[in-house]
Structure formats: C-alpha cells, structure tokens
C-alpha cells in the first residue's frame, strides 16, 4: 500500500543502501519524529543506542544495520500521522523602523512567512537584518505598517505572550544555559505539553536528531559554540514552534557544520507533521540561498527580494552575471568576452564580476573560456543570486 511515508522511507533506505549512513540516520530520525508516536520513539532510541555503540568502536560492525533500518522503517510505515496543510503564518505589510539614535532606518517592507519554507535574510553588517528579525518577533515596534500572525495553534491567539510562545527567536549569541543541558530541554518540553515518559522520549529524539547524544551530560561551558547553537536549536524544536527566527546561526560554525545545520533546517521546516516557517539571517550567501525559498537582500535598510523561479511562468530575459577568479587582466577579459555581450566588469575582493547582456548564454561563455585557455580558479553564475547585489 502506498502511504504518505513511502517516498520518505524510500529516500532513507536509498541513503543507507548507498552507504550514506550519516545522512540516512538523520533522515530516519526525521521520519520517526514525523510520527509523534511514543512507541516509534522508543524503538528509534533503541536503534540509536545500538548505532552509537556500533559506530563508537573502531572498525565497528555495522553488518546488522540494513536489517535494523528496515525493521524500523516498517514500524514507522504502519503509524498514521497528521499532515499539516502549508499556509502563511506571518504577513507583514509596509513595516518600517527608524532608530532615534543613529541614522539607520529600515525602509517599508512586505514579507510573508509560509510554513515549510525558509526565508534567507542577507546583507552586510548594519543593514537591518537583526532589526527585521526583532520586528517580526515583536521585540521592536514598527514605526509604520503592521504584522499579522496567523498561527494554527489556538492558544497562541489568546494573548501576545501566547503568540510569542509559538515563535522562536535564536539570537546570534544564545544566552548561557544554567543547570544540566537535558534538564533545560525537558523543562521546555514540559511547558509545551510533554509530560512524563513522553517528555523523556521527545527530548531524546530531538537530541538524537540534532546529533547531540554524546553531549547530553555536558555543561554549557564545556561545549563549543557550534554545539551551543545546536542545543539552542534543539530547545527550540522541543517547543514545536510554528515560526523560527534565527539571527546569524552560522556565524560561529565551521563550513561543514554550516552545511549540516542548513540542511537540517530545511528538513525541519519541511516536516509533514509539524512544518514551520524559518527565517534566518546570515552572511553565508550561497549556503543560505541553497536552502531558502526566498531571499531578502537588505542594503542600507532597503529590501531587495529574490523569489524562486515559478514553474510555468514566462521566462524573462535576464542579464547573465558571473563571478570569475583568474590571473587574466581586466583588458584581456574585455577583449575575450567583448563578442559574447559583456557589458561591464567590476573587481571585488580578488574576483571579477562580469555583466553580460540579457540573452547571453552560459554555454557560449564557457566555450569561449575553453577555446582561449583562460586560467580559471573559480567560476559561478550569480545571475539569480543575491550575491549580485553586493557590488564593489
């Protein structure tokens, strides 16, 4: 029988079959979390115990892994779950903010956050990213415009306190946690309705999903800033918020950790049973773009929206913009690409940005480079990226 799980379970199985056990493990946990079923949680945690034990040993024997994964997937496959219909959770119209001290002001901006989607917020420092997040979280009062929350949780409509309890804002530097890390997670879970054994299983599942099992007994001061961010994210997920606002979550993470956390955010946002709208600010432009449904580029308080290309929409002839790192000079490049529609060259941080006329073909450009034997260290099409707004 085809269930709503089938594609997900097939995906998990494929990961394991292809030897990508780490990603498969994470997606398996995602599938288990979707069920919101205590029995599945218990089985999954037992699997986690076995998996951790097996992988902890050098040359650990993972022969039983396929069978165990299959067993667990079969259990998950038989559990019904509630699927949430995606919808707009927050819509802001014409919001602006001017600080009394300083000259900065965030210019009027419209934004909607939809469950299951990630919105990237990019821009240089001091251009209003944090201001926008704080406005959306209700920490700042907009000078104009209004913000409307359409959260599905009925209790969130009682008062703004209850509304805020359904939002989660993670600042760039999360506040220090006191007491045991697990106690903090369990406390949050209890306040959000998880009691007794359900509380234990739920927090353990989230901890496992965030890859924090080895650090459960640690104290806040003993873990690195990357893991602090992951624990903060775990605490947020335990609460099952509808909107997640993250201010520079990648700031203190290494490249690999950045990629993993962004991927996790995408998986979490697209959950079937508890989808959420995520908005995150970052300087990591390309990484954010990869997972975002929409990207807002903020420059001196003005927003430039980057929407995904809609399927079936009429293609518009957009200019081709490329980043190129090469030892060639500006003049050599101008000469080489002159016939390919090159309109402008700017030099930004050791990298050339080449602006071609609308309708220029990337294939033609690559052929030109190949024929000329141009020494290329790095090449990227940024026509659809908000990177193009960062002009020198």
């Amino acid at each position: 029988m085809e269930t709503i799980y089938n594609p997900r379970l097939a995906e998990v199985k494929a990961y394991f079959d292809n030897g990508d056990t780490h990603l498969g493990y994470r997606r398996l946990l995602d599938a288990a979390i979707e069920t919101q079923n205590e029995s599945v949680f218990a089985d999954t945690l037992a699997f986690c115990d076995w998996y951790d034990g097996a992988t902890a040993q050098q040359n650990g024997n993972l022969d039983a892994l396929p069978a165990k994964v299959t067993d667990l997937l079969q259990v998950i496959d038989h559990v019904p779950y509630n699927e949430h219909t995606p919808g707009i959770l927050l819509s802001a119209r014409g919001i602006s903010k001017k600080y009394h001290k300083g000259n900065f002001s965030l210019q009027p901006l419209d934004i909607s956050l939809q469950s299951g989607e990630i919105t990237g917020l990019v821009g240089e420092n001091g251009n209003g990213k944090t201001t926008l997040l704080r406005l959306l979280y209700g920490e700042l009062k907009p000078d104009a415009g209004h913000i409307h929350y359409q959260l599905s949780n009925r209790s969130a409509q009682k008062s703004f306190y209850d509304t805020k309890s359904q939002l989660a804002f993670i600042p760039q530097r999360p506040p220090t946690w006191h007491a045991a890390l697990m106690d903090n997670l369990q406390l949050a879970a209890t306040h959000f309705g998880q009691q007794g054994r359900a509380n234990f299983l739920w927090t353990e599942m989230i901890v496992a999903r965030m890859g924090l099992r080895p650090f459960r007994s640690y104290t806040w001061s003993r873990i690195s800033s990357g893991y602090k961010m992951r624990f903060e994210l775990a605490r947020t997920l335990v609460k099952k918020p509808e909107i997640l606002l993250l201010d520079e979550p990648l700031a203190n993470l290494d490249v690999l950790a950045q990629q993993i956390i962004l991927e996790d955010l995408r998986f979490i946002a697209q959950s079937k049973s508890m989808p959420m709208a995520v908005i995150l600010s970052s300087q990591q432009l390309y990484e954010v773009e990869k997972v975002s449904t929409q990207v807002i580029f903020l420059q001196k308080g003005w927003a430039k929206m980057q929407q995904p290309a809609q399927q079936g929409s009429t293609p518009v002839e957009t200019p081709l913009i490329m980043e190129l790192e090469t030892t060639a000079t500006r003049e050599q490049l101008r000469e080489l690409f002159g016939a390919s529609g090159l309109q402008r060259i700017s030099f930004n941080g050791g990298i050339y940005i080449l602006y071609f006329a609308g309708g220029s073909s990337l294939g033609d450009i690559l052929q030109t480079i190949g024929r000329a034997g141009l020494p290329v260290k790095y090449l990227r099409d940024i026509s659809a990226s908000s990177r193009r707004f960062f002009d020198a």
Partner: protein
Amino acid sequence: MLKKLNQYLLTHYPLLWNTRIVQVLLVNAIIHLLFFFGGWVSVDAHNLQEKDYYFYRGSLTAFSVLCSIVVLIGWLIFYLRNNAFKSFYQLGKWHLTKEFALILLIVFSSITFLESYGYGERTKARRITNYTQLVQEVNTVNLAKAFIPTDKSDYFILNHCGNGFDEKVAYVRAVDYEDTLNNDRNDTNFIKIRNAMRRTDAFSYLHYCQTWANLDDTLSYRRNNQITHTVKDWIVNKRKDSITASIKQAIAICKKYGIGTELDAAALAALPFVDSNHTISRLVRINDYDGDLNASPYYLDEYALNRTFDYLDRCSTHSKTVGHWARLLLELYFMLGIGILLLCYRRFSKKVFLISIIGAGVWCIVLGMVAAGTRSETGLGILYLFLFGLFTAIALAALYAKRSKVLAGVLLNWHIYMIPTVFVAIAFLIVYNYNHAPHLYGVYDSARHCMDYPIGCWVENNFEIIAWGNLVFSLLYTGFIFNRFAKKWHIMPDE
C-alpha cells in the same frame, strides 16, 4: 530517589522543579527540627529565669540569620537557573501567582528558624511545668508571698483590695513622708499616708492585698481579694501550721526552678504573731548580698521567680500574646519584601531591576533629606503618596501605550516596592492629623475627641488590623494584579 523525584517534578510539575520547593522545604524542615531541638535542650527548670520570651541571645540570632542567608543563597543558585516566563514558555493561567506563592513559602520557611527554637523552648518549658501546674504554683507562691515580706508597702494600711490602681493611695518605701522640704508635703495623699504611718498597725500582715506574680491570664489565677481573705483567716485563727506549709511549698517551688532562697519557714511563719497588730517586723531581702550587716537573714530572689513564672505563663499562652502576633507580622512583612524583590528580578530585565534598586535607594535618600529639611511629617507623607501616585500613573500609561519599556519597568518596580507601605502611610497621616486635630470642646476629652473624629479614632485604635489587612492586600495585589502588569510589560516591544 532524589534524582527520580527531580525527574518526576521536571516532567510533571515544572514550577515545583524550578523553584526546588521540595528540596528547600526538606532542608528547611531539617534546620527547623535542629533549631527546635536546640531550643528544647537549651531549657531546663533552673534556667527558665534567664529566658526572655521575645528576644534571643545575639549569637543565636546571628546564627539563625546566617542559616537563613546560606539557605536562601543556596536556593537562589538553583532557582535562578531557569525562568520559563522570560523564555516565553507556555504557562498556565495562575503560573505566575503560584510562583509568587512558592517564593513566599520558601522565604518564610527560611527566615523563621528562630521561631522553631522558641517553639522548642516553649514546648520543653511546658513539659517542665504545664499550665495547670503553673496555676497551682503561682497561686501557692502568691499566698506564701504574703508571709515572705520583701516590701513594706504591700502591707500598708491604706491598701484596699478591689481598688483601681488610680484610686489607690500607694505608699512608696523610698519616699520620706516626714520630710518638711518635700514639695508634695501638702498633697492630700501625702497627708493621708503620713497620718496612716503614725498608726501602730500601719504595716500589718492583715493589710496584705497583692497578687505578687501578676500574670497575663488573670482569670486562671487566684485574685488578690481571695488571697487577702485566706491570709486574714490564717492570722486571725493563728493557723501557723498552714502558713509554715505554704512557705515550705513556695521554697520547694523555688528549689525546683533554682531560685536563690534562704528562707526558714517556721521562723517566717512566726513573724506575723510577734505583736497583736501583726506588724511587719522583718523584711526578706531580694538580693543574696546586702551591704547592711543588720539586714534580714532571709532572702528570696523574687525577680528571678517572677521571670520564671512570667516566662512559663507566656509559654502556655503564647498564641494569645500581642508580641507573638506582632513578631509574626514583622516576619510576614519581611517575607513580602524579599518576595517582591525576587519577583521583580524574575519578571523584569536585569537592567530594569538594577535601575529600580539603585533608584529606590536614591529616592530614600532624597525623601530622608526632605524629611530632615522640612520636619513636616504630614508633608513627607503627602509627598510619598504623591510620588506613589505619579509612578503608578506614568507606569500604567506607558504600559498601555506600549512605549518607553525601560521607564515603564522601573516605575512598575517602584510602584510595587511602595505598595506595602502606602496604606500604612495613609494610616499614619490619618492618625497624625487625628492627634493634632483641634479639640472642639475646649478641654481634651478622649471619648469626645473620638466621637468628633471617628475615622482617625478608629484607625488609631485598630492599627494592628490595618497592618494585617495591608499585608493581605499587598500579597493578593502582588500575586494577582502586579503579575499581570509584569506579563504585559514583558511582551512590550523595546522601542
């Protein structure tokens, strides 16, 4: 076991887990027990005379304060680790009120160790002498005391049982009524006393009219006229054996409590019969040392005996004593003060809390300087109430307009700091004005003045009720109303 309990509380009753109420109450219960035990062992029959019902030794008080500080700091280290309110966790409708109530309970249980010590003392004292025994002993000593004269004035002819204190013509041993230079020489009472002193029966056992140990609960003890009746009966009927037996019983009681005595029952019983007027011929010393070589050989430390009885009486009737309730009231106000401070720390940002604490200190200094400068109690009271009104009005205006979050928070803090004192300040103003109000009928007549100013009169006479009412109001207001303001403040945008 404790770990399991912690886990249970954490996953079922997060507020109880966060406040560590179970652990802290357990620790406090142990400390209270130790203090109770300390109080118990500190009491024996011989040191009851040294006990003070209201005050404890400085070292004991200091130790108790130290214990309170250690417990409260230890508790705060755990309690302040988590704050569901500031983290915007989902909270039940009465969560904030319950948290305040738990804070109060913990603070109260942590600042009242001395009460347990006192309770231990009282329990032991009651075990040494219960109330029935005490009544018997007091009545015995009161009767025997008639035959153990320590002060001639108790036997003066002008003493009349049943006279009110005001009407009594009291002979004072230290006054020389024959002194021609005394300004009161021509006073009516002086003349009466002087004339009476010239009589041969001026100081006689027959005139004894006292209840020597005059304890609070007069209903249970024999009255002075009953004692006088028995004394007269024994003397008139020459019941020397009864007198001897009574004095012996008193000596036995003194021995029980380690009271210094040097009494010869037979010799003292013989003294009333030395002459036909039953004159007081010999006094009993109340100090064990008297510089006068011709002083009486008899001695009774009546001060120590009185203290012993007084202490035992208070131990038996402590719940009825004014001091007991006054001290409880003081402790409850102290609890409220600490509770409000902690509540403000938990509800507001650290910045707002710090500004409000420092600001409150500055206001105290300013008001103190105003008070010292103007020397007007009424003016100071009115200024205080005006400031309270001003702070409250601005705080609420800012709160409902959702503007100036820091200012609103600081003013709300000041508002709640002042709440427990506002009605007391109003009451003080009323009483002050009542006491300084003009007397409408010329000569001061308290009853008439009271009728003219019934509110002032009522407030003055019922200050204790007002203090209790104010405490209850402050607790309810903080728990139910102020917490709502704090929640409203918490969701205010910063700018």
